[in-house]
């Protein structure tokens, strides 16, 4: 079980959190024309890197804030976490 530092609550065990997927994804702007390939890339396609990965977590059984985590997908090491409006301080 991972130990994750919520930027609002501090270190808590993984069972308080929900994984939220790739943190690099930018949703296309509403109302903007977008071709099918780009839309499909946004909806379906994700990189699956081995190593450092920016991802989203949601402190569902806590403060209910979404935040970013930089995690190694192979070792599970979490290098840093930060609020959505911040950058990692690594």
């Amino acid at each position: 079980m991972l130990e994750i530092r919520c930027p609002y609550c501090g270190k808590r065990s993984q069972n308080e959190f929900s994984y939220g997927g790739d943190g690099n994804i930018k949703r296309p702007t509403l109302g903007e024309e977008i071709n099918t390939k780009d839309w499909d890339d946004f909806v379906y396609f994700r990189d699956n890197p081995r190593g450092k990965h920016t991802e989203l977590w949601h402190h569902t059984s806590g403060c209910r804030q979404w935040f970013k985590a930089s995690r190694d997908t192979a070792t599970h090491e979490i290098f840093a976490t930060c609020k959505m409006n911040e950058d990692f301080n690594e």
Partner: protein
Amino acid sequence: MRISMSNQFRTTNSNGLINKNKILNFTFNGQTFQGYEGDTLASALIANGVHLVGRSFKYHRPRGFLGVGVEEPNAMVQLHEGDRSEPNIMATEVELVEGLVANSQNCWPSVKFDIGEINNLLNRFFPAGFYYKTFMWPKSFWYKIYEPVIRKAAGMGIAPLNPDPDRYEHNYEHCDVLVVGSGPSGLASALAAAKNGARVILAEDKAHFGGSLLNDDVTIGNMSGREWASDVISQLKNLPNVVVKNRSQVFGYYDHNMTVMFERVSDHIEKPSQYTPRQRLHYIRAGEVIVSTGSIERPISFGNNDRPGILLASAAREYMKVYETLVGKKPIIFTNNDTAYSTALEFLKNDITPIILDTRDNSDGELVKEVQNQGIQIRFNSGIANTKGHLKIKSATIGKLDSDKENFISYEEVECDCICMSGGWTPTVHLSSQAGNKLKFKEEIDAYVPDQKRQKETAVGAANGSYTLDQSLAEGFQVGFELSNKFTSNNSKTDTPMSKEPSQESHEKLWCMPLPNGKKPKRFIDFQNDVAVSDVELALREGFRSIEHVKRYTTLGMAGDQGKTSNLNGLQYVSKIEKKIVPEVGHTTFRPPYTPVTIGTIVGREVGNHYLPTRKSPIHKWHEENNAVFVAAGLWVRPRYYPRGNETMNDAVNREAANVRKNVGICDVTTLGKIDIKGPDAPEFLNRIYTNAWLKLPVGKARYGVMLREDGMVMDDGTTSRISENHFHMTTTTAQAANVLSHLEYYLQVVWPELDVNVLSTTEQFAGVAVAGPKSRELLTKMFPSIDLSNEGLPFMGLIDTKLGDIPARIYRISFSGELAYEVNVESDYGLHLWKKIMEAGSDFGVQPYGTEALSTLRIEMGHVAGPELDGRTIPFDVGLNGMVSQKKDFIGKRSLSKEAFVAEDRQTIVGLVPVDKKSKIPEGSHIVENDKAPTPNPKLGHVSSSCWSVEYNNPFSIAIMKDGKKQIGKTLFAVSPLKDISIPVEVVSSHYVDPKGERVRS
């Protein structure tokens, strides 16, 4: 039953850790024995001369004890009786209590005469991979013949069928330093870390602390090893920053230094307090973990090396030193190293002279010298070729080895009643390996030791391959200080005491004896899975090279003991045949649990109703009192129907639903998800979340909304009301409430943080009651005489804030049943009051409560979609909600709706089905086909999502989602359920079966 001659195999000295003043009676295979307080089941049986404990897994060979602790592969018993019965328990790990009952397992009719032993005689027909090779064909035979027969013959103990009557607990702990194992290095680490101020947990599997110090004659400072151990333990117990746990096995090492420990709290107590759990699982998040788990002695492979009475030399020593038990009186000691000589010395202390066989040419170690000084002649260059004795070892064929030790050159038959073997030692690296440590092979001890760590884990002492006491203590004190200082920075260092132990010479790299002339006895490597040297040879001959493949093919190291005594011997043998060095062969991966853990401990208190939290509406008590039958809806418990008299479920549901259509019914809808949405950008936010338009919803009005995922699939639906300019009240389905809240939070916090909106779950803050049916207006008018509930005063999709007496109440004019209907909300605490008031006022109008079944019937008849239709695989078009999709604005998932498949001409859509015979109920999940006689694969047109008995038309009715559905209306098709062997001719109709124009809700 008879009492046997008691304890004839006890030592003459009483320096052990048992209490001979307290006699304990116990039963093994129906016979009563006596042991002492402090005994294990194993030591007590051995003290009574019992070595035959069970039968082996594959060949049903008689087996006894190999070890004295967690390494035991053979002596597994069925413990206790009745609901507390437990299979596959290592007799070496069971502390004796008065009245203990144990039985042999894997044998029939008895351990002394076991029919299954025929497998042993037929062993040449049971080579490695036998099951893979033999039982493949014909395929149909597997389920009917092979599997049942194999299952009966194989297997170990028997699991009880009833629930476990005992109580188990979970506990969560944090510490700076967790020390696993209380041998010399563990005690040193714990003491150093504790004295430096760190929060320390010290865990020991056994009842007694000290590890090897309990068995070895060594001196630390001016104390014996044992005295030093107990001195350190009492120091630690007096420190407030230390938790000391015996009977506690750290069995798992997970990510981020999460370790899991299994504590046997009251197994050793005859009559535990009712408030004491039986066992406890500790989740320990440790800053640093010190792995001081010691080492396990290795057996040697020789002909018939598995007979009862053949055991590890270290085990024999511990039985003598700790349990005052003699494993035999005519011992042979067989070794490739010096450590077994301390077992010889222990026998000599009991006036028993062992025969000593040493594969080496010579040794000048101090232990060897001491044995020789007592006048014992050691047979160097010797080994055991074979043994005799069916149920217990009787004699051994000992042989002189040739110079390259590949053959015996002469033989001699020697009587014996036990063989104590030692093939050297294997560091217990399981936890380090579980932690992700890349092990390295240490040539001088011929074993793997931890190397590159991935987590905050440090091995010390024998677990680190440091076999001398000096080294162990030095490492322990050093590592304990350094790691604790990371947390405390106290720089308070504890001095390492001087220690003294006999010097030792190195072992010989020989773990497998040659076969005796002209004979091919089995030379076992893995005792628990009956894997012999010949099986490994066969696997290699058949082309298996990777050690992982050899492991799986032979099942070497795959038994419950995870190869604690067999892995390295297997590796050594593979490396010898393959002529590779061991590191090239590699090693298999260790996985938790290190030792078996009871299911009860893993489950803890999460049993029965405590498996999940239970959510109940504030009206729950009334439902109970009024004969409701309940159903689980996620975590909620909801009334399903309220039977009267002898009514069946169908009777009750039809009555409840018909009463809504005719008079008025009320339903507890508290469970619906409710989300409070506030902020100046709330309308804009809803406009993006929902498929329809929200900017112009007037205050005091509700609107039905559908939300999609980005992939275009419907996520949820519900009504949302505008309470005031910037304040909305959203409802979700019961099942999706939590997901919808997370969804909203995601878009607000991650995607559109510029929107000034706050969301908050208010599901539990409001109780809700649906009042539905043609007489609902009259009923509510009686309750709220001051409110105008007419179509003008409160039109469809309107809402009014009012009061029920002094209680604030909100009335929504919304309908799920398709009838004229309202929903009244009050604060939760007033829910029961509201419900009772409605029942009271409704008595004149024939009000009846209705449950979830009638609720479903009413919505299915009306063609209103719910969970079965919104199953995450349907877009708005599929479920008849295309009219809800705005063409003017963008919203979540809109772009997906224009994808090719989603706009296909023959896209699936919702329809109704009525059985042609107007009688047959159509099972939900049935497939719709054009021709039920067509050969498979028969093209499927769609599936039945919801079924009910239409109370309006008095015949079955179903909703289906079907390809090109609207064009199928009027056709007769078949609803088939091959699993139930059902085929029902059905007529396709509109999904709006009742009141298709929706006039009633507006009446």
